[in-house]
Structures are given as C-alpha cells and as structure tokens.
C-alpha cells in the first residue's frame, strides 16, 4: 500500500509541473505570512529564523527538491538546449540544502571589547540563559527554545508551557564546572522558570503581612507632569531599607530602644566641630552649613559656606572638607579646613590685591593669610546620616511598639533637621537639594546658597508589613521596538528550591550585558546561605573560537564634527588582534563597516556592530559562524547562470541546430 502510494506520488505528482507551481505558490504564501504577519509566527513563539526553519517550511522545501529532481531526471533530457533548466534546478537544490545546513548550525551574537582588553567569549543573539550569582562566582543555565513573544504564568493558565525549564542546575564555565548549589553550599539548590513576560516592569508594593516589620509607603509627584513615584521603606529588607527619589536619599532604620534614638539625634546635631583659637580667645563651635558665627569680641566672624563629605585631595585621598568665609577686622578671605588636619588652605578673594588669575573660590595661597586664626576641624558621622555631595538623606527611625516616626534630614549643604510624626499617615515635605552648579556659583559669588525645592510626599505607615513584588505588563501601544527586539524588558519568575521543602519565587529581569552592567533585582535568601543569591536573565554566554583584543577603536564623523554629537557617522574601525588558543598564532586586522574579518578560512566572521558613542572606549563586534554559505553561494551562482543560459544562450543553440539541420537536409537533397 505504502509502496503504491509512493509510486503514485512519484509518477503522478512529483513529475507534474503544476504540482511544482502549486508548491511555489505555497512557499510564497508561507513566506508572506511569516514576514508580513509577524503576529502569526509570534503566536507559535517563532522568530524569523525559527519560522523559516520550522517543519512546515522544511516539508515544502523537501517536496520542492523532490519534484525538481523527479521532473529534471524524468522530463528534461540532458541536451545542450536543456542545460539551462538543469543548471537552475541543480542550483535551487544546492541552495535549499545549503540553507538547511546553514540554519541548523548557525550561531550568532556579539561581544563588547574595551580598549586594550581581550575577550574569549560572546553572547548569543537568540538563546537566553539564567545566570545565578553566589557572591564572588557566577553560574549559568542555558535556556534553549525559551519563549519570546507571549506571556506565560500559572495565573494566565498557560504556565505548563514552561515545564521544560524546571530543575535547572546552573554551572560555572571552565574546565571543572561547579554548580550554583555547590557554590552556595546547598547541594540540591535548583531553579525553575515558572513565569515569563516579554515586555513588562517589575514593581513593588507594601502589603500587610503577619510577622512583618514597620514599613512606610511614600507616594509623591516630585515634578509636574510625571507619574507619581511609589516608594517604600522597610527596615532590614534586602532591597527596601534604602531608596531614592531623584536627589533625595531615603532610608529606614528600626530601633529597639528609645535611647538609641536620642543618641542618633545628638549625633545629627554635631556633625561639624570647629575649635577656634585667637589671641585671648578659644572656643569649640558646633557648626551648621549656611550659618554665621561671631567669635566673641575679637571682630572675627565665620560663615560656613559649604561642605563636601567626599572631597578628593591632590594625593587622591577622600576627606570631609568644610569651606568657610572668614571676616577679620581688616579683611575677608576664604578658608578650607579638612577634618582631622591642622593645615587649612586660605584663598584670596577675587578682586582683592594679589588675586590675579583667581578661580571661583579665589586665589589659592600656600601660606596662611591669618596665622593668628587657628582652626581645627572635626567631622563626625558615626551614625552614617550624611549622604553624598549634592543629595539630602532622610533617615526614618521607627521604634517597634510606638507610633512615632522620627525623620532626620541631613545633607552636605543644608542644615540638619529633625522631624517627629505620630500616627499612621501624614503628608511630609522633603527638600530636594539645589543643583551642584548653582551651589558652586553661589559660593564663588558670595551669595547665599539657593533654596531647596519642596516636594510633598504622602506617607503611610504599616506596623506589620512586607514588600511584595509583582509584574506589570507594558501595554502594546507603549512598547518600544528596539527594546522589544533586544529583549530589554523581558522578565521571568524563577522558583528557587533547596530540596528540603523550602522554595521562593522571585522576579528576575533581563540584563543586556551580564558581565558589565550592574545586576538589578532577582535576589533570593536561601536558607543556610549567608549572602543573598542573585539571578538575571541574559543572552547565553559562548566561547569564541579565538581570543580577540581591541588594540584601537576609531570613529569618523561626517563634516569633521564632534563625534559625541554627530548624528551621522561615516565609519567605525576596530583594530583587533586575534590569537589562536591552540597554536598561539596572532593576527592583527582592522574591522570596519562592510569590511569584516574572516577567521578560520571564512568559517567565522567578526564584523563591526556597535560602539561607545561618547568616548570611544569600546567596540561591539558581531560574531557569527558561516555553515553552508559556500554551498548556498554556489547554488545562487548556478541559478543565475542557468537562467541566462535558458533565456539567452539556448535560442542561439537552437538556431545553430536548425541551420545545421537545414544544411544537412540541403546536402541530403543535393545528394
């Protein structure tokens, strides 16, 4: 029966030109659907390459090859006038087989190389991997066939589609791989992807939960027109004890004892201590930035202009620095004092004698302008309440069992403030510091510091709270094409288990540069492991066939304009040295647009793919292998040659044959 069916197929169908034409129509339709209706292939979780490597297309191509071979062998005689058809058909068959081989074994990706650095890896463009970091080490579990276009989750009723990504055991790269569980000291630590969203944001909300601690929910629009910021503070929680709102740092500390709070309040009021000595005068002053202090009846006065908690000295040391304006009975000058140092620096103010070449602070002096004035400065922030320069830190203190919240606001260039709130809800006003440039201008011109911007925030306190993460899909109309294609907004929900009954679900974001960009979220506390275990979704790591060093990177802009601001570039050039890992042989070559470097006789290609458009610090090279390309190229050449032969050579041969036949007939007639 099967033999008869095959015979019929062979005899009647495969040798039928109409069948071939029908196949062409089907192939064209398949291509049009795959390319013109991306929603169709995305429904089946197929990107372009996967769609055109899927079984229906393969079946169509195999049938095309079968019919071509059958028709050619059975219906087209191998005579010079038919050579064109033969060549074209052989060309199409070669192209199809080359294509099968190509898409079966093709890998491609990219690697970012910093100037004068060497890499031996690249990241796959299509395949994802789950990366797990136990402090100090990183393990990886590839996710072949991972979905891309549709969301999957138990709540959506389609979570079973992710079953094949359960029991993941990420391992380190290298000769003797170690699993994430071994690294963490939890042998049966395993991971499973239980949810996936192609374009979503991970959000958090503060919820009531028995056994939780005091938590604060803060909602406020810091700038007109923006969405309200929804923040939360939960003391002791891995990622929620600190947060920030533009230039405002927020922290929550839970205290067990009211006495601790008193100690903190005292510390907050005594950041800057200045011991001042003048002939006949000595005083220890506790200073606030922006205030003026008169030194008894000496005729001296000091204005505290600004404070920089992390000022860098000439020998690269980071020290707290206070800038003072000193008014003496006879003159006025600027003095900078460093905490713990007895060597202040004085500056002659611009416009005064000896101030030629003065900068914003004045002209720096190597000797003190007033030796009589001795200033010893001490900065004390033992409670860590001072933030970095240009910000203000609001530290929320809560004491379990009381409904009181104490908020201490401290910043380099603002006076310290203490605010006490009772109850579970309040509107608090936060001060956003003035821009650093405005502060500098004010200091330089001797003007008062610019005022801080007022931001009203609605605070809600929960006595027994926990932070819950959730995923919010971005509506399709708001999605960005480039982000979507790069997968930048992909989110997975990973379930970590330890084999002993414990499990925890955590949302893990996509990280485009696993080795370079900081990891965000994806943190889980595994029982028995002191440090948190962190996870990221990323492009799968692969080894290069050779190591590549970036010797030099150059970018050319049209019109000689500044490269960082040039909208249109002429070229990018990466001079690279490729080292064969086995022979140690080195080759130096230049990759630029349309001029890739071929490696291993053309089996691999390294091409210019991206670059650092600010400072030319790195290049991004596209990486790809080239299986079957030569066969496909040969097939294409045969098709072109065959068509030309069939259209334009065949008639010449037919004419020559006719003339020969006529001549022969003429001779025969004569004979």
């Amino acid at each position, binding site marked *: 029966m099967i033999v008869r069916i095959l015979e019929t197929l062979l005899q009647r169908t495969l040798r039928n030109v109409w069948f071939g034409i029908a196949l062409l129509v089907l192939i064209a339709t398949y291509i049009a659907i795959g390319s013109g209706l991306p929603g169709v292939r995305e429904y089946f979780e197929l990107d372009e390459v996967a769609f055109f490597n899927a079984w229906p297309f393969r079946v169509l191509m195999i049938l095309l090859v079968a019919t071509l071979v059958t028709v050619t062998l059975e219906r087209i005689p191998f005579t010079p006038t038919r050579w064109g058809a033969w060549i074209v058909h052989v060309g199409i068959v070669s192209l199809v087989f080359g294509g099968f081989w190509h898409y079966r074994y093709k890998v491609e990706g990219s690697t970012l190389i910093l100037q004068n650095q060497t890499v031996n890896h690249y990241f796959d463009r299509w395949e994802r991997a789950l990366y797990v970091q136990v402090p100090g080490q990183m393990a990886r579990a590839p996710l072949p066939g991972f979905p891309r276009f549709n969301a999957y989750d138990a709540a959506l009723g389609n979570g079973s589609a992710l079953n094949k990504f359960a029991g993941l055991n990420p391992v380190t790269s290298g000769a003797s791989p170690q699993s994430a569980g071994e690294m963490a000291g939890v042998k049966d630590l395993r991971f499973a992807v239980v949810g996936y969203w192609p374009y979503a944001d991970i959000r958090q909300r503060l919820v009531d939960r028995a056994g939780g601690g005091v938590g604060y929910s803060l909602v406020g629009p810091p700038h007109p027109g923006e*969405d309200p910021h929804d923040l939360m503070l939960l003391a002791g929680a891995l990622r929620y004890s600190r947060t920030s709102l533009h230039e405002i740092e927020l922290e929550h500390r839970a205290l067990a004892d009211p006495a601790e709070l008193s100690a903190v309040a005292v510390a907050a009021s005594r950041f800057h201590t200045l011991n001042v000595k003048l002939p006949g005068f000595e005083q220890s002053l506790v200073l606030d930035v922006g205030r003026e202090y008169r030194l008894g009846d000496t005729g001296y006065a000091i204005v505290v202009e600004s404070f920089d908690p992390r000022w860098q000295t000439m020998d690269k040391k980071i020290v707290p620095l206070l800038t003072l304006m000193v008014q003496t009975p006879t003159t006025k000058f600027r003095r900078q004092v460093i905490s713990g140092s007895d060597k202040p620096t004085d500056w002659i103010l611009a416009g005064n004698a000896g101030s030629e070449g003065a900068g914003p602070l004045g002209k720096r002096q190597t000797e003190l302008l007033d030796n009589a004035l001795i200033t010893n400065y001490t900065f004390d922030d033992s409670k860590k309440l001072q933030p970095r320069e240009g910000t203000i830190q609001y530290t929320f203190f809560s004491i379990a069992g009381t409904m009181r919240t104490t908020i201490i606001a401290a910043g380099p260039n603002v006076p310290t403030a203490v605010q006490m709130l009772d109850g579970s809800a309040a509107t608090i006003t936060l001060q956003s510091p003035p821009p650093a440039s405005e502060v500098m201008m004010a200091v330089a011109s001797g003007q008062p510091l610019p005022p801080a911007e007022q931001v009203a925030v609605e605070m809600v306190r929960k006595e027994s709270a926990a932070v819950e993460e959730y995923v919010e899909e971005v509506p399709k109309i708001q999605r960005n094409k480039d982000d979507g294609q790069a997968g930048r907004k992909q989110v997975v929900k990973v379930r970590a288990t330890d084999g002993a009954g414990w499990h925890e679900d955590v949302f893990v974001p996509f990280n485009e540069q696993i080795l370079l960009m900081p990891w965000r979220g994806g943190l889980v506390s595994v029982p028995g492991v002191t440090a948190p275990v962190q996870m990221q979704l990323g492009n799968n790591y692969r080894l290069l066939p050779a190591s590549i060093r970036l010797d030099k990177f150059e970018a050319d802009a049209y019109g000689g304009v500044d490269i960082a601001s040039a909208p249109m570039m002429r070229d990018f050039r990466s001079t690279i040295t490729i080292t064969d890992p086995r022979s140690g042989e080195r080759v130096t070559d230049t990759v630029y647009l349309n001029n890739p470097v071929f490696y291993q006789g053309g089996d691999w290609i390294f091409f210019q793919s991206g670059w650092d458009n600010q400072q030319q610090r790195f290049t991004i090279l596209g990486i790809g292998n080239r299986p079957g390309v030569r066969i496909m190229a040969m097939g294409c050449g045969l098709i072109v040659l065959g068509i030309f032969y069939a259209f334009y050579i065949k008639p010449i041969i037919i004419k020559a044959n006719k003339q020969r036949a006529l001549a022969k007939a003429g001779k025969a007639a004569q004979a």
Partner: protein
Amino acid sequence: MRQIFIILATLTALVSSARAAGADSFSKQINIDPIRYMSLQDKQTIKTFDTYAREAMFHITGRSTLDGESATFTVLDMVFNPRAYAERNLIYIRNKPFRADFGSLSFIDAAEKQRILKEGQISLKFWFDPHTQQAMEKQMASATVKAKAIQEIHDQALALSQILDYPGFRGTLVTQAIVPPLDGDSANARPWQSLPDASMKLVQNPQVMSGAYAGSIEKMITAVQGLNTAWVAKDAASVNQQAINLAAAAESVNPTIYPSKTKRKFEVAYNALSRLTWPGAALYFLAFVFFLLAWQTELKWMYVTAWIAVVLAWLVHVGAIAIRWWLVQKNVGNWFEAIPIKNQFESVMFSAWFGTVVALVLETGLINRVFKRLAGWDFRKLHGQGIFGAAGAGIGMLSLVALFAVPFVTGQDIIGAGIRQNAGILMTYWLYVHVTLVTASYALIGMTFVIGTWYAIQYLANKDAAILQTLDAANLTMLQLAFWILGIGIITGALWADVSWGRPWAWDPKETFALITWIVYLIIVHIRIVTSGTNRALITSVLSIVGFGVMLFNWIGVNFFLVGLHSYA
C-alpha cells in the same frame, strides 16, 4: 463684443494694479540672491542658503513657501523679525489623529481646538508654553505613537526656534553655520561655524587667526548687522548692498574650499525646478500619450513626436541625476561615493532612468537585430510600434510624478529627497551593485505591469489575436530580463548582508518580499511551459500585474507596515 473688450480691459487694469502693488512691497524691491546663493553647513552637509531655507520651511510648515514669498525671504524675515513669527501658527502637525489630542487641553478654548484640528498648525510660543509642555509630557508617557508625534513636533519647534533664536530674539544670523573653516581640504571636511561662534573663537585665539580671516569675519558681522538694521527699516537699497557684502565676505574666508558659484547656482535652479521632477514628468507624459496614439493610429508623425518628447524627457532625467551627483559630490568629497542611488528618492530616479533606457533601446530595435543575428529571434517585429516606448515613458512619468507629488499629498518628503549624509553602512560598492540591480529590475517589472495591463485591456476590448500576440511577446521580453536581473540583485544583496550583518539572509521583510516577487516570475516561467495560446498570455499578463503589486508593496509598503533592517531603502 464691446462688453468683452470692457471686461478684458478691466481685468488687465486689475492685474496691472496688483502687479504695481506687489512692486511696492518690500520683498519685491529687494534682491536677496547673493544670500540665496551663499553656502552653509547644516546637518553635516554643505548646501546653499536656498536649500537650507526650503528644507527648514518644509520641515516646519509642511510647505515650501509662506505668504507667497520664497523660502529664503521667509527665513531671513524670521531671522530679522523673529518676534512676529513666534506667535504665528507655523508648526504643522503631520500626525493628523494626534491633532485631536489638543482637544484635551483645558487652557485653550473650543474655537482654537477646532482650528488646530482643521488646520493642524500651532505656534512656537504655544508649543513651549509650560502648560503645553506639561500636557505633552503626560501624553508622551501614554503611548509610543503619541511620543513619536510629539517628538516630531518638538523637532520642528526646535528648528523654528533655532532660526528665530527663540527666546533670545537677537535678530541676527545667530545659529546658522555660515562661516567656512580655515583648514580642511574640502568644503565639508571640517565643521563650519555660526558668526557668534567664529567671533568668539577669534577673541579666544587671536594669535592663531590670520589677519585676513579676522577681516572677513568682521566684514560678515558688519554686513549682518547692517542687513538687520536695513531689513527692520525696510531699506531695500541697503539690504541689497549688505547682502552683496555678506556673501562676498563669506566667500573670502576660505575661497579654496568655498563651493563654486556655478555649483551653487545649479543647486538653486535644481531646487526651483523641484529637482527637475515635474519637467521630466511632463515630457514623459507627452511621450506616453503620443506613443499610445502612434500605436493606435499608426501615424508616423505621432510616432516621431513621441520620440522627440521621450528623448527630451530622458535628457532632463539624465540632467536631474547628473546635477544631483555633482551636488552630492561636494559633500562627500569624491565622485564614487557620491553616486546618487543611496536612498528612496535617488533609487526611484535611477530606476525610472534605467527603465526608459531599456525600453528605448528595445523600441529602436537595436537589440532585436543583435538577437536576430545570434538567435534567430525577431520578437515578431516588436520594435517601432511604440509598445516599449509607451511602457518606458509610462514608467518614467509615474516615477517622476510620484517624486514630485508625494510631498504635496502627504506633507512629508520622500526619504532622501534632500541631499544629506548617508549612514556609513551604505558607503560601499556593494550598494551600487545590489541597489542598481534591484531597482533596475523594479523598472522592468513596472514596464511588465504597463504592458500586462495593456494586454488585459486589449483582451477584454477586442481580442485581436495579432495584437495580443505582439503584446505578449513584448511582455515576455521585459519579464525575462526583470526575472534575471532581480535574481542577481537579490543574490548580491545576500553577499552584501554577509559582510555587513554577518549573515547572508535574515528573513527581513525587504528580502522576503523581493524573493516573493521573484517567485511570482518563476511561476510565470513555469506556467508558460504547461499552458499555451491565449491562456498562457493572459495568465502571464495577470501575474505581471500581481508581481508589480508585490514589488510595489516591497519597495514602499514594507517601510510603512513592517519592521525591518532596510529602513533607508
């Protein structure tokens, strides 16, 4: 009769008085040609002030003129009377559905909302009003489509504010880079500067700048200040003199790299004639009509007239391509990289040109004679009947009309219509090989469409066997050539992609729809094997039309409807 005379006399008097009134106006009294022909650098490209003004005006207002004045006059008037334009509704909102979003603004009245919806224009002051900006920020966060529309309007607003020097209103040519650089071996090798920047550089580095340079800058500053004063005072004589002074001073900064006067004049003329699109289209139309009439009537004088028109059209077409090549050359510095086939405008221009060349060569019968000698083909004496001529003229006309009319119909220029720099990835010989072949095949596909449609009409109209046979043979001639060249074009594209993107075939929509077009012609070839007679020809003509539709979708539709790698094609 007397009444007619009175009417004519009245009309003549009215026209004369209108002309007289026009002659009194400031714009008619001044001659700003010296400024029109000046060079400047804009978007990393060297262009005349005329080109800059036209592009800026079209970008901002969706039109190339305002109040019936030239773009150059309008831009200068904006520069010297900036306050008058800050509150005018000049910024054209191209995204029509987005205009309705202005209806949600609470601080404008219903009449204004209706006006925006109808006219689609807003003022610079309105756009930069904090209330508007605040509302737009909210809109931007709501949808990507709206974000794009807002970004487009914002770009237009920035372009206008740059001309007006908003909100500074300093009333001089502040932001335009009209000062050529001192160094560099060609006009576009180094950045040009605006007058304030150049004078600042002069103050900062007096020892570096030569006396001649400083003198030229000072003359330019004096001329601009004088021009400003004269313009505001409407002193036409002084404006004319200062315009001459400014142009001469700019040219004297670095005469060795300053674009030649001839080139600048050609550029202005090229702009004035809509890049020579409508003159060419008009002549092609004439040729098309006469070729059809000649074929229908077999009158020799009509055929000769058609030939005269098509040769003239072709010469204009060649001129359009040659002038553009010449103008592009000054920006890229060499002739090879300047070949004008790097964007949609240039490729349509080239494609139509190639199509007409092939059609006219076939029309003359030269190729037929060669083939007859070699292969015994005579194409059933296809040449000399006007079929190929009409097809070529038809495709030339359609292409040039499209290039001319699209901006007026859509309010947006065709990609690459203005001369500007191209993405570095396009600066390769591969582009010439691949794009030339593909667009050449598109022209041939266009002609198979013309002939295929012609066949279908004839088939429905009179079914004259001889005519149908002739048209089918003509269609086959074009079709074979299109099929073969498109095949090579697709393959060369794959070879280019291999070295550029690291893989020969990405299943990108442009690639796949080109392949589908090719498959349509592959189907035609095979259908012709298994069919015969009228059926064969009819199917061929129908599939020629289908193939043209697929090609057209690939060339234009894919850019609008699908996401892919060929964003510039």
